[in-house]
């Protein structure tokens, strides 16, 4: 069965909110409404935020979703605005906010070097080439770990979303059981 192009209403139905415990229902409902409309970024600058969003679109394309989107750049900014993060950091990496800001700047510099344009102004194939480049880059030493963090952070946010879970046929959240 191909779930790729299910609409929001079809996915909501699949979620069976009436068969969830009150706590699960409340948490997931709130997540669906989260970042809608998108808040102003608090930690990232407008430019960094735009690059983050454009990179997220390459790492996790959402163009097959007819009428819903998970706002991954807002999720990143929200994470960075909290004093408590994920609980650990590779020792080679600079502190989290600094790492994201420098890392996103490196992405843009790479776009400038390769295509003499800002990352956000590239077409999809150019963007993909830049991302592939970042993935393989070895300078500065921490850039591969930055890539891992950026990717893992976006991916965790995307697959934590109930609509995404429903779209891949995961119904783990339907948690009222006899």
């Amino acid at each position: 069965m191909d779930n790729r192009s299910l609409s929001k209403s079809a996915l909501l139905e699949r979620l069976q909110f009436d068969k969830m415990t009150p706590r699960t229902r409340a948490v997931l409902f709130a997540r669906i409404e989260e970042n809608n409309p998108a808040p102003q970024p608090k930690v990232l600058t407008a430019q960094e935020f735009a690059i983050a969003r454009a990179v997220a679109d390459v790492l996790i394309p959402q163009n097959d979703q007819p009428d819903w989107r998970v706002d991954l750049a807002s999720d990143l900014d929200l994470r960075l605005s909290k004093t408590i993060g994920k609980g650990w950091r590779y020792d080679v990496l600079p502190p989290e906010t600094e790492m994201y800001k420098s890392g996103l700047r490196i992405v843009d510099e790479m776009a400038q070097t390769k295509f003499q344009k800002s990352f956000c102004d590239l077409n999809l194939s150019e963007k993909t080439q830049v991302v592939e480049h970042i993935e393989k880059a070895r300078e500065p030493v921490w850039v591969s770990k930055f890539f891992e963090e950026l990717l893992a952070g976006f991916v965790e946010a995307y697959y934590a979303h109930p609509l995404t879970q429903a779209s891949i046929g995961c119904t783990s959240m339907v948690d009222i059981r006899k």
Partner: protein
Amino acid sequence: MKNAIELSHDILPHAVPNYWSTMQTYPLHEEVDAVVIGTGAGGAPLLARLAQAGMKVVALEAGPRFSPFDDFATDEKSQAKLFWRHERLSAGQDPLAFGNNNSGTGVGGSTLHFTAYVPRPHENDLKVKTEFGRGEDWPFSYAELEPYLSEVEQFIGVSGPSSYPWGASRSKSYPLPPLDLNRAAQYMQKGCDRLGIRTSPAANAALSKDFTVKGVGQRPACNRRGFCQAGCNNGAKSSTDMTYLPLAVVHRAEIRDHSYVTEFELSKDKRTMTGVVYKRGGKTYRQKCRAVFLAAGGIETPRLLLLNSLANSSGQLGRNFMAHPGSEVWGEFPDKDEPWRGIPGALISEDFHRAPKAEYETGYLLQSIGVMPVTYVSQKVRGEKLWGEKLKAHMRQYPFVAGINMLGDCYPSSENFVELSDELDDRGLRKPRVHFTFGENEKRMMDHAEKKMRAIWEEAGARNIWTFKRGAHIIGTARMGHDADSCVVDPSGKAFDLENLYICDNSIFPSALSVNPALTIMALSLRTADHYLGRQS
């Protein structure tokens, strides 16, 4: 004591708030018999034991108190509140992930988000130095531990097989029959059968039937929700908040949540602790006490003592850090097996514990594993850097995946240790830096296990098989032993340097064991309490 009898009629998850409303409180200026720091596997059993002996005991727990039915969603993201998330720095060739991987917080400690596998250690796990000339022996034998293992299993409610092909004989069988085999377990059974590898339903600290915790109340059977690592919302998982902590409160222990210990008060000669200093809601408090039991876990325990320059005349505090080699092998199956369903680790094989002619020393076990969606995808992208359409295609197969994982013993190494960094955390304290690199033996063991697991998965009919290498558990940073020059605590758990400090958590393990640690930590906790009580009388 008023509510002990009333409470026993309640179903526990709903009764938990009652415990708190009737909980004994002790004034700060009154000297209590003991302060216990941390309420996980190491702190909780001992807290109950001391309280049952009539002692006045206070537990200080950094994390919050949860009411599982009201507070726990079947959702990984919101349940990140169970993780210890004050930043740790991960160094070495195989830097360890913490947060969602290795340690928890809250009244219940890491048992709130542990997976609930509770295999017993083997007799020879406690004697690796005698057997292989490397690592360390434990300062006592398995025979001394066995009654405690048994007591824990009977009390908390462990579901397990009636006969088991490996290990020493048992003084008592498991109190409950094993939990159902989920799909991953069935696949593993099939693959192992074809390869002649023996399997057994695994021991799990989760209830296959409704169960009464003696002196506490009744708990319902597991409903196969499979989110054990994100917290069990119905009380079927035998985490300490469902077992030893309510027992302690019934016996007049006080548990203070959100209470983060930062310092100790000492006698003039610095040989005795006279009080514990902690922060709660921005204020500093001091609790006078006659003894301290430190059970803050394998990283926070050495960190707290290092921050206070205590208990380290051996120079060994933070050293000998070990983590279990814990590679996982995943594959896709033709049928939608719903990897989020059922107790995650339902089947075990210990055929590779001391396998004849093996190219590695010591041993490992294999377990089938279920997995929650975000945990799965996070490992996939960290391990393989998968993104774009490939990632999305892979995740459409998530409902069809099943896994096996290994868990093996680990030798201590001078390269692996916990130290204080110069960076400050959100509380203004120096962050711990954890160095970890797998040794040659661990690597050989992981290679061996990976080949076996892949073979099992091929026999079981899996496609797109892939491996994720990881280290699990935080072990060994305050070693227990006879020798004050090479160990931090003596065989009873008492710090060599102080008259009344006991350490009682994963940090005192002299060797890592070839099994998951929680059951042994709980058994050790009861043993330490008995030693202490013996000394008092």
